[in-house]
């Protein structure tokens, strides 16, 4: 790193010099050995312990979902007028978590932020897993889940068609598109790495598996040409989706007449919130990954620093959004909106409002300090806070808005049941189980992309004396 800085000192101002993206000596060969060897190794005890915990959570979730299937939505705390509660909170929460991955892999790719290369794979995987957790809810939250397929506009002899005016239908398309594009994008990136693993492995079964998955990748120049083109195209597609998915999810609320939902600020506010929550989750997981998988040289403190800055920026946008909600309630002179906003800060669920504000706006401000951005303690604290805060933000939006809307006669307090918590726990179980399996089965870092940012990998005007 020092070497790099010294050589370029004469040409450009120091502030503009991009520091090295890896720490220590990393060569393409050592990178392969470091990253691709993982799936070959026997997992440590801690991994099994973790898997046991997450699988338990997963099974509890599956049990609770089964119970809901058998008895009905009444197993949850949902009631009139809070017809949506944990089901949709969890859905929005998990869709939001997914956003960081796509943002890192697609938007930062297009902006040529090269630091993204080392963390893009893991973030993308988390996107896929989060969306898997999210799509569970539209399926199980309907009253008759065995008919959930009616939400798809498929030709049928009953000549019934879906209602394209319904934001829920837009959701179906948005989330499906998002999931399929994210999956393709992720898989495409994986192909060269899988091919490397195919070539490295000695196990026969793995060989067959990787051969199939690598789709005949040989690393030929034509392969690379197509690969780069496809990657760029998918990045372009996914970029739009980062913005569209959560905008569409926010339409569920924004296009309704419920006071507290009916707001034009919702689409950008939701997208910012999603990136916010997603980055917090990525920070949390990457800290664990870099520590336990000895990847400190690839996932550097600089990565964490940059992501913490993103979190801080998003936190400020959230703060602005919250203030705008209050401003709208006041400026509109609409009694319903006004009542709804007062409920957030002072009603029965006022505590939830303050949890949201504290976790999302107040605590992340610590990240203005460089020391905090470099401290595990603070960044984990902020990340956990943001995760909790963003879950409660959806609680505030959904439950608080619904529990007191227009006619006071219909107002009612909502209370979740143990089944609600069980399903929430279950989704965390699913998410982290998938994360753990991913970490052991597939390369957690895109070696081909990291190779591209190793010192000397890119042609530069002073590249000649790099190794001098």
């Amino acid at each position, binding site marked *: 790193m020092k070497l790099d800085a010294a050589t370029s000192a004469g040409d450009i101002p120091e502030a503009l010099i991009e520091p090295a993206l890896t720490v220590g000596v990393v060569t393409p060969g050592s990178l392969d050995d470091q990253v691709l060897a993982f799936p070959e190794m026997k997992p440590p005890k801690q991994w099994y312990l973790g898997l046991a915990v997450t699988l338990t959570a997963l099974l509890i979730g599956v049990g609770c979902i089964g119970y809901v299937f058998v*008895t*009905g*939505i*009444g*197993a949850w*705390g*949902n*009631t*009139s*007028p809070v*017809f*949506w509660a944990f089901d949709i909170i969890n859905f929005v929460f998990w869709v939001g978590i997914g956003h960081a991955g796509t943002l890192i892999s697609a938007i930062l790719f297009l902006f040529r932020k090269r630091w993204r290369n080392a963390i893009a794979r893991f973030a993308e995987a988390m996107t896929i897993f989060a969306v898997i957790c999210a799509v569970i809810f539209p399926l199980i*939250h*309907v*009253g*008759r*889940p065995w*008919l*959930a397929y*009616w*939400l798809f506009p498929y030709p049928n002899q009953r000549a*019934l*068609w*879906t*209602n394209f*005016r*319904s*934001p*829920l*239908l837009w959701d*179906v398309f948005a989330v499906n598109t998002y999931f399929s594009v994210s999956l393709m994008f992720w898989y495409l990136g994986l192909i060269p790495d899988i091919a490397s693993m195919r070539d490295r492995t000695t196990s026969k079964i793995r060989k067959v598996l990787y051969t199939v998955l690598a789709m005949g990748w040989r690393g030929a120049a034509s392969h690379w040409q197509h690969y780069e083109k496809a990657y760029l195209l998918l990045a372009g597609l996914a970029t739009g989706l980062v913005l569209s998915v959560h905008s569409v999810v926010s339409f*569920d609320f924004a*296009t*309704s*007449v*419920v006071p507290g939902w009916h707001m034009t600020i919702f689409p950008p506010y939701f997208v910012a919130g999603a990136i916010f929550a997603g980055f917090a989750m990525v920070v949390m997981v990457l800290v664990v990954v870099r520590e336990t998988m000895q990847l400190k040289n690839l996932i550097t403190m600089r990565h964490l620093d940059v992501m913490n800055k993103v979190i801080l920026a998003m936190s400020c946008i959230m703060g602005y959004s919250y203030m705008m909600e209050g401003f709208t309630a006041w400026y509109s002179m609409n*009694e319903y909106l006004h*009542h709804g906003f007062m409920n957030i800060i002072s009603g029965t669920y006022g505590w939830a409002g303050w949890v949201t504000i504290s976790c999302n706006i107040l605590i992340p401000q610590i990240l203005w300090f460089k020391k905090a951005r470099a401290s595990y303690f603070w960044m984990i604290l902020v990340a956990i806070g943001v995760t909790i805060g963003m879950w409660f933000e959806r609680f505030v939006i959904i439950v608080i808005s*619904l529990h*007191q*809307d*227009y*006619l*006071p*006669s*219909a*107002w*009612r*307090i909502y*209370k979740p049941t143990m089944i609600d918590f069980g399903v929430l726990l279950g989704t965390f179980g699913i998410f982290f189980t998938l994360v753990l399996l991913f970490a052991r089965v597939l390369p957690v870092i895109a070696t081909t992309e990291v190779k591209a940012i190793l010192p000397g990998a890119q042609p530069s005007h002073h590249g000649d004396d790099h190794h001098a």
Partner: protein
Amino acid sequence: MKTRLPEHGPLETPRFWRTLEERIETPEAQRAAHDEFLPGTIPAGPDYDDVHGLPPQSGVSRRDFLGLVSAAAALAATVACDRKGQGTVVPYTKRPVEVIPGVANYYASATHEGRRVYPVLVKTREGRPIHLTGNDEHPGVKGKTSPRVMADVLRLYDPDRLRAPKAQGHVASWADAEAQFHGALRGAKAAGKPVLLISGAVVSPSRKALLADLKTALPTLEHLAYEPAAGDAAEVAALASFGQAVDLQPRLDKAKVILSLGADFLNGEDPEAQAAWGAKRRLKNAQEAINRLWVLEGPLTLTGTNADQRVPVSPSRLGAVAFALAKELAAKGVALPTGTDLSGMSAGAPADIPAAVWSSLVKDLRAAGRNAVVLCGAQMPAEAHQAAHLLNAMLGSEAVALRAAEPLATVKDLEAAAQKMASGAYAAVLFWDVNPAYTYPKAAAWKEAVTKVPFRAWIGQVEDETSAQCQLLLPENHWLESWGDYATPGAAVLQQPAIGALYDTRQGEDILLGVLKAMGATVPDGYHAYLQARWKKELPFGTSFEQALHDGLVKGETKTSAPVFKGASVAAAAKKAVAAKADGLELVLFPGFATHDGRHANNSWLQETPDPITKMTWDNPVAVSVQDAKALGLEEGDWVTLALDGATLKLPAVIQPGQAPGVLALALGYGRTTGGVAKGMGVNAFPLVGLDPASAHARGGAKLAKAGGRKELSRTQSHHRMEGRDLVRSLTMDEFAHNPQGHHHMPELVTLYEDQKFPDHKWGMVIDLAACTGCSACMVACQSENNVATVGPEQVARGREMHWIRIDRYYEGELENPKVVHQPMLCQHCDNAPCENVCPVNATNHSPEGLNQMAYNRCVGTRYCANNCPYKVRRFNFLEYTAYKTEPETLAYNPEVTVRPRGVMEKCSFCVQRINDVKIRAKGDGRAILDGEITTACMAGCPSDAIVFGDLKDPKSKVSQLVAASRAYRVLEELGVKPAITYLADLKNPAMPMASTEGGHHEA
């Protein structure tokens, strides 16, 4: 009574035979018939005649094996294909003459509750009674009835009904049961020992005649007519004031000023009063005459919520206040009845009432004169009743009709009977439709006394607390399976069955006829014949019995001399009233809105219909005034102990705005220990009823203490203020005259979209809040018509009740005596319905006639529509509320309305089945639909005619005209959803400026 099991031919003799030998059953022929297949080809076959026997051979034969395989395949296929499996659909093999599938039959019939008679029209489908309305021919009720009567159709299908006689706890045949019963009575007669019969009120002339016949045949018979919730004080007062029992019917059509002393005549029980009230309140303009309702009461009643001027007064003070009023009126020149002595009273306004209110009330009553009426609540002390009788006599009120009535037994009579039973004097006791083991205040002593009677028989429908002590249980028909008659003012009413008896039951009168016969009397064969014989004698010339049955009544006023008020009774009552003072808290025990005296407690429709005041379902919390709750530190739902006279109850408390300080109110009829629905719901308050009939239901000296902990209340409304929103508009007559729209500035509603076109019809509804009393009859009517499921107290506590129409009740102003408004809330069938565009599967959409339709089959249950409904009138089947139901419960279903499964959204359909029924009939007749021809269930059930339904496209229709009324407004109109329901603002006619509502009168 015949049994209704399928009849088999004699099993011994084959009904079909192949040979004559077989017919005459020679052994050879039988063997030949058995070994149809040649002997030896298969092992000796199984004896198929013996269902329990098994094949004698060892191992399974090829035939058995194949049989089993095919049976297994068939079973597997059946089980696997259950998804679309239908219940058995069997056409009538012999269609009953009366029944045409798909066509409703209507029967005129009648029932009664206490002394009140309800002539009804029964709608039957495929032979099953499914819906009740009032008999439209009757001059008094005019097609209306009460919520409890409407719900009583469900009792017909109560699965807990006793289906055959029981003797000593075992099912017995009627022959055995009667032998036992008649034997015991004959023995009593022979021994000359008294026999006690306790029944409900006797309002039927034929039943009265039958009982007289029985008394002749069995001279030792003693009869008590017992109505535990009728109000003993009213009986005591009537005997004192008139020297006889009286039945008192308000004639509100003649009343300009009404003073209620705790009387709750607008709670839906009295369709005649409701109708008159509605007629006086549905004003087109402020120039029309309106009545004025003054209410002095302790607990807040439904009538109190409709008052123009209400003053909270504790029940013990009511008598004194009313006598003071009499004195004041007398001083102002209103003549006292002869012999009246009010010298014991001090003159002037009593301390309980503000002076300005007092003088205004006196002025009002005096001015109204004969058009004023004073009504007293049945639970109030006898002095208050006597004062009311005096005031009516002084004013010469035309607005109340008094008729001589059969006397009712009071607690005192029951106490005497219990003592006599305990002494072993009675040879037999017969309970007929009464439950004293539950309703008598000292139940333990009562049960102990009953067991001292050697022979105890019980006639009733569902085994109860009383039947537990009886050896012989005789199951009774539901009234919809029975004959009877009633005398009502204006018409003699007939009761006829609308269905044959479902089980092996008999009607009580038939059982007594059997007794008569056993005693050697010559009586007609069955009560139908008995009734017919009596009626044929008394029918006016030119009317056939069949015609009377068809109409359900014969019009005509029976001439009875009105009871005369005895002035001499006043002095003692006034003295007692002045001295009356409650120590400790005063407790008012009133019949439960749903359960009455407990007889309806097993009816889930009623249990789930919220109390119109507290909005409680399935429970009877004690209502505590705001002041007392503050003093005791009570909050809603807190467990409390209520102690009075050695009886202590633990129950939850609710804080009741408007209730007089120092007064507690508690509903009777809960805490039953029998019945699948009733058991364990609420607490039994009868132990708190006093043994002094003069104030059995209004008692002093109650003690209330916090018991710790809180109960989650199964309440349908938990927020009681309008939060300053323009939801229920209420106008004084002054405002109505000058500024009916108030200061409500409606933003101009612009839309980018084209208005929806309605080519033929546009259905709409108008609800007049001035006429609506909040009685909740519409809720029960809707429940019955639309197969609305009940969900139970736990689900109600979570907010999952399923009612398609509800009554929103809001308090305004200070809580000590708030203004109360009621608002029926149902699907508004918005033209721009927010629910419609959010449904992803198009399960809810708009009809070309303006109906917001729900396609249950298409609904997947995303619940988005309910979130987006500003009125929150959509109901979701959170759990499976219907599929577990079996016969007989399912027989109560209206076949024209889909029964909704779990996971499906539902809501008011504007009774689309009724709309279509009329449309089809009009089309068949080749004519247009007449205005008023289509009635929704809520409209037909509304006793005050507050609801009007019709075609908004027809400018001459009633609904179109009402929509243009000056009081008209739409709820949440500013959202631009264009509701199809228009509300007419509530009207209040206060005698003085309404101070109490200043704080809460909101202008949006």
